[in-house]
């Protein structure tokens, strides 16, 4: 069709808009949510219920000066926030929002997502390194070790999913789970046998929190230890882009969790599936992430690595083995 040229443009605009709105309003949601949990109203002055707050924040950030301190690596310092945004937005391309809303259904989309997730860590490393600030460098080093440690269990759980679905295409994985919540990977019944995939789901969810550097695993930001971590020297939109990148990573993480474990756009009761179900699922997941953040204190670096190496990795390995055995036997 002649729409072939329009398709990428529509999707590009759509994804950008989705990303922008999410990045802006997740900040608002987070503040409102935190407020309610702490029994205060949250932002409420700018617009009704503070709904215009993200706009005000955005204008404020954009009109401020991007301070480039003396002695920083000017180019990398400026580029790092942009690099933080690229993987977050690019990841959206392969996410199937519903049966017919997806920018590009790639065969190896899971692989692409993980490759991009590693790139997000590079941005933190570059930003922290270029700042020439000791807090920022400590923060970068933490972020790298953390991301390395948590990618392994995350990948292992995904391998189990890929084995069940027999595909690395997110669309296929989602389609494989259609038809009500008992078909979803998290509650999966296979030939009358219960696959303990909820273990994988919990591991994956913990890892996605850790991968996005969210509390209680926000070692890289750790505002009471490292001031603001890798963002210490950033002001204006440099800071703004990092923040947006962080929120978008959460969105991508939630999308991935929803697709892999919660049946994508499937309706839990086996009725008409649709994009609304998908959005509902991801926002429930995002709310949980916010909820977790405002409940727990931060962990410690070696506790975090202990959790990964001593608990999550063994569990995910066993998970892969058991899944493989089930698939082979039944």
């Amino acid at each position, binding site marked *: 069709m002649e729409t072939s040229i329009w398709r990428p443009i529509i999707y590009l605009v759509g994804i950008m808009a989705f990303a922008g709105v999410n990045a802006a309003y997740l900040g608002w949601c987070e503040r409102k*949510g935190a*407020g309610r*949990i702490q*029994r*205060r109203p949250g932002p409420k002055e700018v617009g009704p219920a503070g709904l215009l707050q993200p706009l005000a924040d955005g204008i404020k950030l954009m009109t401020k000066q991007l301070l480039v301190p003396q002695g920083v690596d000017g180019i990398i310092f400026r580029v790092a926030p942009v690099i933080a945004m690229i993987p977050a937005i690019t990841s959206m391309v392969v996410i199937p929002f519903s049966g017919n809303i997806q920018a590009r259904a790639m065969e190896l989309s899971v692989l692409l997502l993980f490759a991009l997730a590693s790139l997000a860590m590079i941005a933190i490393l570059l930003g922290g390194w270029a700042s020439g600030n000791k807090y920022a460098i400590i923060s970068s080093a933490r972020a790298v070790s953390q991301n390395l440690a948590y990618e392994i269990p995350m990948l292992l759980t995904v391998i189990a999913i890929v084995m069940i679905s027999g595909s690395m295409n997110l669309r296929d994985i989602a389609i494989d789970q259609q038809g009500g919540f008992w078909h979803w990977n998290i509650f999966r019944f296979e030939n009358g046998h219960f696959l303990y995939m909820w273990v994988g789901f919990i591991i994956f969810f913990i890892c996605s929190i850790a991968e996005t550097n969210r509390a209680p695993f926000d070692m890289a930001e750790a505002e009471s230890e490292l001031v603001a971590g890798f963002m210490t020297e950033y002001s204006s939109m440099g800071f703004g882009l990092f923040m947006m990148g962080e929120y978008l990573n959460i969105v991508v993480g939630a999308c991935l969790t929803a697709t892999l474990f919660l049946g994508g756009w499937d309706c839990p009761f086996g009725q008409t599936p649709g994009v609304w179900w998908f959005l509902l699922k991801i926002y429930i997941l995002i709310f949980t992430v916010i909820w977790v953040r405002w*409940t*727990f204190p931060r962990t410690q670096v070696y506790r975090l690595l202990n959790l990964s190496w001593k*608990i999550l990795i063994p569990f995910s390995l066993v998970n892969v083995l058991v899944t493989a055995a089930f698939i082979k036997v039944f």
Partner: protein
Amino acid sequence: MSGYWSDILVGSKSLLTGMMITAREFFRPVVTENYPYEVPVMTERFRGHIELIPNEESGKPNCIACMACQRACPSDCISLKGSKKEGDKKKSLDSYILDFTKCSLCGSCVESCNFNALRFSKEYNLASFNKDDFIIDLLKRLEDQN
């Protein structure tokens, strides 16, 4: 090894309990006082900056310029002048300047006053860009109030 499993079990349970608590609080009403819209009532003993007490009949300050408050003040905030007017029995106040920039709201002045001439005001919205706003002429303040 038993520590390993119990850590996981007890730990997960404690985490879930924590999440339940924050969830419960999420649905409870907010406790914030909406400050500029809801103005708190100051308690009876609230120690704001001081003000002069007017005489119930004449409306003039009760102060007889005995200087007790000036002496009691630890930070030299108070400077007052008084003189004996024609026909009066007691001295009366000419000026009473409170330098609120130095005041630590300790209340020594009110306590030292034996003539029921000083009290704490209930004013707490004290903010200004100008330092001179806090050098308060209490006599004038009293006149403005009347």
